[in-house]
């Protein structure tokens, strides 16, 4: 897309009058009826499981210590896709570069959890519960983010969805949430029409069940099945230019786009991808990290293109449980570290900027003498999206025990 939405919105409507093939939201804007989809805002959360190496993803190429600490796995200055003279993207992320240029992509560096754990399991748990250090929290913050929200007249069964075979911690809680592994198999008996009575029987069985856990999930499931059937998302084809790569993550995002475009009332969604735990032979411009980053970036870029004008109401946030050691280890890899990088994409995002305070990589600046220090609590980043985008003002309930005042936001949403 040559003109970006933002430029258009800022420069006024007249510039595009008479231009053919406009995204519909632009014509809405031109009509003066722009209401940026009140009630249609959605938040998509992406988890990079396994502790992605933020220092090789958004590279501090203006930092000499970066190169001295990573003699064999650094991203050379001439290979980095420079962003602002100090930071640059890993070259495998080229597909997201246009979004940065269009200012739809923002970055927060040195973000993370204040908890010192370097256990994948615990750190993921804390990031999903939204309560670092507190294991007793039973629900996830993305579920709570819906909790106090004024609901539309009719609650959609697809209000909260996770793409994958199980419902992650981040979405568990009192608000109904569904896990969708594959929308084509999402039903009883598949395409077999004779299975309808069986499906009905199962539905009644779970509806009447006294097993509270299975009863609840069963009801949510059958509601979602019915909704999906009536929306008939199988007519979907990806938008032109949305080149989804092969792979599970890409498929997840494609199915998510399908559900969003079928107008199923998705408000929060979650997808994840693993393969970031590079203790050995991490690689530099090529190799393991390049491969997984390419998958990550191309999938997100295709998703963005596919959403078309619906991207205007969408905010996508990425996170990973912690970063990796500032120094490379003895095997051309990195071990478990602390702070990391987060990406935020979306129509309302004030992109083209790296947010957060950079703590530096000199020995004295490192956390415990080995890792990038956290200067932005991940809850501050997420809190802003929940508050400004989802319009849930009760942040004390979404992130209990954390002071999350709007005036301390990074203001990447305005």
């Amino acid at each position: 897309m040559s003109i970006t939405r933002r430029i258009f919105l800022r420069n006024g409507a007249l510039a595009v009058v008479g231009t053919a093939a406009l995204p519909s939201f632009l014509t809405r804007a031109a009509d003066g009826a722009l209401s940026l989809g009140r009630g249609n805002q959605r938040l998509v959360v992406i988890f990079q499981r396994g502790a992605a190496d933020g220092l090789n993803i958004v590279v501090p190429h203006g930092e000499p210590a970066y190169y001295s600490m990573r003699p064999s796995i650094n991203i050379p200055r001439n290979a980095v896709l420079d962003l602002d003279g100090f930071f640059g993207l890993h070259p495998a992320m080229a597909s997201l570069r246009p979004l940065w240029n269009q200012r739809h992509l923002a970055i927060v560096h040195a973000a993370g959890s204040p908890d010192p754990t370097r256990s994948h399991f615990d750190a993921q748990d804390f990031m999903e519960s939204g309560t670092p250090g507190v294991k007793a929290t039973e629900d996830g913050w993305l579920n709570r983010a819906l909790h106090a929200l004024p609901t539309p007249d009719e609650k959609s069964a697809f209000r909260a969805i996770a793409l994958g075979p199980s419902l992650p911690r981040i979405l568990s809680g009192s608000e109904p949430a569904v896990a969708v592994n594959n929308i084509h198999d999402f039903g009883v008996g598949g395409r077999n029409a004779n299975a309808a009575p069986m499906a009905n029987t199962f539905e009644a069985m779970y509806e009447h069940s006294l097993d509270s856990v299975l009863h609840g999930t069963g009801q949510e499931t059958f509601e979602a099945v019915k909704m999906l059937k009536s929306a008939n998302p199988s007519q979907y084809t990806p938008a032109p230019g949305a080149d989804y790569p092969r792979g599970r993550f890409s498929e997840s995002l494609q199915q998510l786009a399908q559900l969003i475009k079928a107008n199923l009332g998705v408000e929060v969604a979650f997808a994840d991808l693993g393969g970031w735990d590079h203790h050995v032979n991490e690689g530099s411009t090529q190799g393991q990290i390049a491969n997984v980053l390419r998958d990550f970036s191309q999938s997100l870029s295709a998703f963005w293109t596919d959403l078309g004008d619906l991207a205007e109401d969408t905010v996508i946030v990425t996170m990973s449980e912690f970063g990796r050691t500032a120094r490379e280890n003895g095997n051309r890899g990195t071990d478990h570290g602390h702070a990391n990088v987060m990406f935020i994409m979306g129509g309302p995002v004030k992109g083209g900027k790296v947010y957060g305070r950079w703590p530096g990589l000199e020995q004295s600046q490192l956390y415990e003498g080995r890792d990038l220090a956290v200067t932005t609590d991940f809850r501050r980043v997420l809190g802003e999206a929940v508050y400004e985008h989802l319009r849930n003002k009760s942040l004390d309930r979404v992130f209990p025990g954390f002071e999350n005042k709007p005036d301390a936001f990074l203001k990447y949403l305005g």
Partner: protein
Amino acid sequence: MRFYQRKIALLLILLTLLMAGVFAFSKKKDKKDPVNGPDERKRAVHALNRLTFGPRPGDVERVAAMGVDKWIEFELHPDKIDDGALEARLAPFRTLRMGTQQLAENFPPPEMIKAVAEGKQRMPSDPAKRAVYQAQLEKYQEKRERKLAASSSARPDSAASGEATKKPEPGDDEMARQREAKLYADLKAQELLDLPPDERMKEILKMSPDEQRELARSKDRDDLMEGLSPQQKETLMAINNPQQVVVSELIEAKLLRAIYGERQLDEVMTDFWFNHFNIFIGKGPDRYLVTSYERDVIRPHALGKFEDLLAATAKSPAMLFYLDNWLSVGPDSDFALGVPKRVPRRPGYYRRRFPNNLPKERPPLQAKNKQRRGLNENYGRELMELHTLGVNGGYTQRDVTEVARVFTGWTIEQPKKGGGFRFEERMHEPGNKIVLGHRIKPKGEKEGMEVLRILARHPSTAKFISTKLALRFVSDNPPPALVDRMAQTFLKKDGDIREVLRTMFYSPEFWAPDTYRVKVKTPLEFVVSAVRATGAEVQDAMPLVRTLNTMGMPLYGMQPPTGYSMKADTWVNSSALLGRMNFALALSNGKVKGIGVEPDHVLGSAPSDAEGTLAALENALLAGDVSKQTHETILKQLDEPQISKRRLDDPARPPDVAGIAGLILGSPEFQRR
């Protein structure tokens, strides 16, 4: 007080029994076990649900008649249980009995093919093996040519002619050729299908490697395999992807063991420990190493001493590779400092240490392994967090680094060729280490053994392991008092796993009414218990394998070292429930390929009316533990003609047994054990 509680518990059990009886055993009340009292049947159901992968037809009666306690003792001593039938089923899977080197040789990984291509290794003479190598060699050459073409076209000043600057992608001609080859392969497959199996195999081996590969990928591949001996099947599979043979035989065997093994507790515990010391089979040479890991490391210690099990995993090439310890080098070791190899201290020192491999096969470490330069703390951390102490077990980052220093030099002899454990002195970090406050004096390999011993006997370990066992066998929130008693047994009996289990199995908490059918089954437990309950005959376990993949529980396929969750919240969600209902219907209707189910057999000589059929199936598949709600829902649906298959003109037509069985297997009740 306690007396009072027990009384209530007893009353509850009786009440539940009575309720179940009203619906399911109304005609079989007199079948109660005469010797061991009315409780025994229910106790048998509970014990079978927890100690096995689910009861098979007749199991409940058998265990109740034997006496539940006696049966538990049997299960705790698997060596006394005859497992001949299972062994016969597993006999065709040759890879299960092969050593790692043999696996790599018979089912060559890319490195092996490269060695043959470069003339460093000889081509095997056996025709079947040869066919496998030939096909892989050709694949390898093709890949190299493509690479060469690509790199020469990338250089504009290349001396090559204009042709070489063309794009490396397949042109129209190439596409047409591929299409033709595929068409030909499909035709050829049709021809081959008419031949008797032996002739068919002979013909296949005569074909060119190219043709063989096309054939192995053709749509008739499964039919082509029919009637072939397992070894012939293996060859055909290996032509396309040799490594896959090893992995799929292991996965199939795991399912067959769970379904048909008589030593059920042993299988459950092997699964438990594998998951505890999890390894992802998709990581490089672990594709070959996991077969031996489960067979030689996990299984022999499943009911043994924890310390032995821990030490065996620590030394296993599979774990050393998976958690990267084989590459970890002490920063001040001779190896890292580039100190040249010293002359052996005493004549024969190295030979005694590494009798088979010195000096010829020792890799020139310095030159070859540029990636080994320093510490890797991956294993050190997971050893304490996941294998022993637990994340809150009282260790620090400092301890992680120190443990990593202790285990430097614990490495593998040529992992890609299936070599074993080796302690490499030159990679080992010299000097004292301090682990959890203990000073570990320099003594090479023995430092690691000392640390394993400290960890294996640590109170945090006792508690962590006991909690996890109780989570598997008792409930998602195991009673702390029970965990404490198990941990005490663990410490008192030197980590004797059998004793810890015994403490648990004979505890009142294990038998408390609120634990009965409270555990939600994992996908593996669900699929296997359904197959067992129906008494199905599994000819091909691969469809079950695929089911587990889509349910989010690929066997040996958990990438992070945490292993799979055993808690309900992980496995109860929309996607999973639909998957379970669909599998239940497919299984009972005989729609799962390779699995023969005859629900009528389960039924026995039940009355042929709908209600009688339902009651009999509830009894057979769920020991009658079907709620009133579920029972009535199904009963109501029996009037639906599509389910009952009854027609007005044919009232005698029997009810749809398969359909009802599917509904029961997909019911909320069957999701718990």
